[in-house]
């Protein structure tokens, strides 16, 4: 049974072998290399990765065209971009193991090259191409660094390639830390990037090293000389309410080198007592956000030499003080500047740049005037009696800004120290508050009267622990801005009668000016009667102007005295006339007696 089966099989097998053998043989010969090639093809990525053999070499199809220089891709908006890829450079990148279509996933030889899927613009193309990065680089990886997360996850985030490049992507840790100084920062900040403040304002974070830093006097500085919290190891994410807040906070960096200027500015009217700039806490509303900080005048990355700060345009002062600047432009100084006489003063020439302080009732502006007009004091002495007194009691623009409205400013001084008594000192000594002082200063709604002034001076002197307080008077302009309408010399007020005359309009406006500790000033209206009141003999004892601040009561006493003096002879003569018959009778009587004798 077994043999029969074997025989049968042998018979059948022989036939089969004869028939199938060549078929299988042929199949084997042809299939084996095919299988081998397929297996090899499947194994290539692993093989390439293991050996770092550039697959691109096999991307001959792509490189057939893209190795050529001078071939441009033209987008629909006519933007052009070179299609050249430097294969050697690419091999050295961190992506050197990838093939072209690893990233360019949408390229199909059926449509490429061709115009079917041409992008609208270079930007659209780059944005699309950057999507490929996300295939490998996870969300977590992008969020790992806060500044990276902040940039990458924004709706308007720049495409990856803006910072990392396209065919030149290198592992950052391989090259960036080795970059010197500012180059490290500029790898990102030379890109077109910006951030948005909480109020929606945009702040460009783009630095153009060629046009900004290099032209600046700070061109030798490292970025983190000013941006001290930033380094290769740290890049804190900061948020600001507004561009203004940002400027205020960042100006604090300047004090690291310019401490002296910083202190001066902090003591100035622009900052003192109301500004907390450069410090971390800046809350709008609690401080004067408009008050200038370093960068307003000096710029930030473009800090220029001193001569560049102020221009004929009046900026930055004009930003807040435009009305004043307009008046200045029409003044003798402003017009001289416009003619190109650069010696003519600009804002800071008189007000100084950093130590800007309240000017009314101070010698600051006079000092500035005399700084240029050095012969002015002597020139006045030649024609003006008591020139020194006039120059101290009458502000320069009172005469040299002839169209200005003038008035009398009364300022409380301690005669012992020669310094003004501040609002803070007054409030403390009077035991009241600012509101209380304000009410006392305007009790009847017509400005403080002589009695009110005297009561204040008396009380202060009683409690003033040795202070000898009195109001000093000075002629000043009613509107400080009019001080900028300075005219040529020939127009200046020269007539004594303009002031030394009880009808002079300049004595109809009287202001009590109280200096604040921060150099500012509070103004209260005073009733002009204070100038001629008997009571003011005590409170305004150091202020007197010939003819204009006469004590009214003294005028009446004068009239009485003169009439009294006249009436003595008149009455006596009258009495003599009336009594002349008596004397005549007596004389006749005497004569008669003589005759009898």
């Amino acid at each position: 049974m077994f043999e029969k089966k074997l025989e049968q099989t042998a018979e059948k097998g022989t036939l089969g072998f004869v028939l199938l053998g060549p078929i299988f043989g042929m199949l084997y010969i042809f299939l084996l290399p095919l299988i081998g090639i397929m297996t090899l093809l499947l194994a290539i990525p692993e093989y390439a990765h293991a050996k770092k053999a550039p697959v691109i070499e096999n991307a001959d199809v792509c490189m057939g065209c893209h190795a050529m220089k001078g071939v441009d891709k033209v987008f629909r908006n006519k933007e052009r971009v070179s299609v050249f890829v430097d294969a050697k450079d690419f091999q050295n990148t961190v992506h050197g193991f990838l093939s072209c279509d690893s990233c360019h996933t949408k390229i199909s030889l059926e449509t490429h090259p061709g115009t079917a899927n041409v992008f609208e613009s270079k930007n659209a193309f780059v944005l699309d191409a950057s999507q490929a990065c996300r295939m490998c680089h996870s969300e977590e990886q992008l969020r790992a660094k806060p500044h990276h997360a902040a940039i990458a996850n924004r709706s308007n985030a720049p495409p990856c390639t803006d910072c990392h490049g396209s065919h030149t992507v290198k592992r950052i840790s391989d090259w960036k830390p080795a970059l010197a100084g500012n180059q490290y920062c500029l790898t990102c900040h030379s890109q077109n990037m910006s951030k948005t403040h909480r109020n929606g304002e945009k702040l460009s974070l783009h630095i153009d090293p060629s046009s900004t830093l290099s032209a600046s006097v700070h061109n030798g500085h490292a970025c983190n000389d000013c941006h001290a919290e930033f380094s290769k190891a740290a890049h804190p994410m900061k948020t600001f309410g507004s561009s203004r807040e940002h400027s205020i906070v960042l100006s604090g960096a300047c004090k690291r080198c310019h401490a002296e200027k910083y202190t001066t500015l902090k003591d100035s009217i622009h900052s003192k007592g109301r500004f907390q700039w450069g410090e971390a806490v800046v809350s709008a509303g609690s401080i004067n956000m408009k008050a200038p900080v370093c960068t307003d005048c000096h710029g930030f990355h473009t800090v220029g030499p001193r001569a560049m700060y102020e221009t004929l345009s009046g900026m930055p002062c004009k930003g807040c003080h435009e009305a004043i600047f307009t008046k200045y432009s029409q003044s003798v100084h402003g017009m001289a500047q416009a003619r190109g006489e650069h010696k003519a003063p600009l804002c800071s020439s008189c007000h100084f740049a950093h130590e800007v302080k309240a000017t009314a009732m101070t010698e600051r502006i006079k000092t500035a005037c005399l700084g240029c007009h050095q012969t002015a004091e002597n020139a006045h002495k030649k024609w003006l009696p008591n020139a020194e007194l006039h120059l101290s009691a009458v502000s320069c623009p009172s005469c040299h800004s002839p169209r200005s409205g003038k008035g009398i400013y009364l300022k409380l001084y301690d005669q012992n120290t020669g310094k003004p008594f501040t609002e803070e000192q007054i409030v403390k000594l009077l035991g009241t508050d600012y509101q209380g002082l304000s009410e006392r200063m305007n009790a009847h709604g017509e400005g403080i009267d002589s009695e009110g002034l005297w009561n204040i001076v008396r009380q202060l002197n009683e409690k003033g622990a040795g202070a000898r307080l009195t109001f000093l008077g000075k002629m000043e302009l009613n509107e400080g801005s009019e001080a900028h309408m300075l005219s040529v010399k020939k127009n200046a007020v020269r007539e004594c009668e303009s002031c030394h005359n009880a009808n002079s309009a300049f004595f109809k406006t009287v202001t009590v000016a109280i200096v604040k500790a921060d150099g500012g000033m509070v103004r209260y209206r005073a009733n002009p009667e204070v100038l001629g009141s008997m009571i003011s003999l005590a409170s305004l004892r150091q202020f007197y102007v010939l003819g204009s601040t006469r004590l009214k009561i003294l005028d009446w006493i004068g009239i009485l005295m003169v009439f009294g003096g006249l009436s003595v002879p008149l009455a006596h003569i009258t009495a003599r006339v009336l009594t002349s018959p008596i004397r005549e009778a007596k004389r006749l009587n005497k004569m008669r007696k003589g005759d009898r004798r």
Partner: protein
Amino acid sequence: MKKLYLHPLPVRIWHWINAVSFVVLIVTGLQIRYREFLGLMKFRDAVDVHNFFGFLIIFNFFLWLVYYIVTGKIKIYIPPLSIKKFVLGCIRQARYYGYGIFLGEENPHHSSPDNKFNPMQQIAYLSIMVVLIPLQLWTGLLLWDIKGFASWIDMFGGIKIVDTVHVFLFLFFTSFLFVHVYLATLGHTATEHIKAMFTGYEEIEEHVH
């Protein structure tokens, strides 16, 4: 009638410089103070003239002071040291001006070079020459250079007080001037005292007792 040499030349020179200065200072003073009512001259000119005559009168005051002290004649200004004598003398003189003169009585005081003034004149002129004039000259000087004399002005209590004193005295002198001129006409004739102030000689009636 006999002639009495009552006013030596230095006294007459002093008197008339004083008289002219007073008038000029009063007029310019009024012009300075009341510019809106008076337009005799410019303010500036009024100040200059006032200052000039101010210094002239200061110089003149010292002329008076030196002359009267050196010659010892200052005693004519000193009222009787006895209060009783002084008071009685004043009453007698006041009675004359207020009563006796109307009845044709004789002036109880007879001027002589050694006893020129009656007790009322003595007390008036002594106060004027020793207190009021120096005070007026001094305050005037302070007002002339307010900056230069700032510490003195401060000692006085302030510029407003110095000025008030100066103006008050100016008003007083103005009113006194009327009385002074009138009294000068109360000689035996209206011009007798005035003439004497030019010539130095006063005509005295010889009394027959």
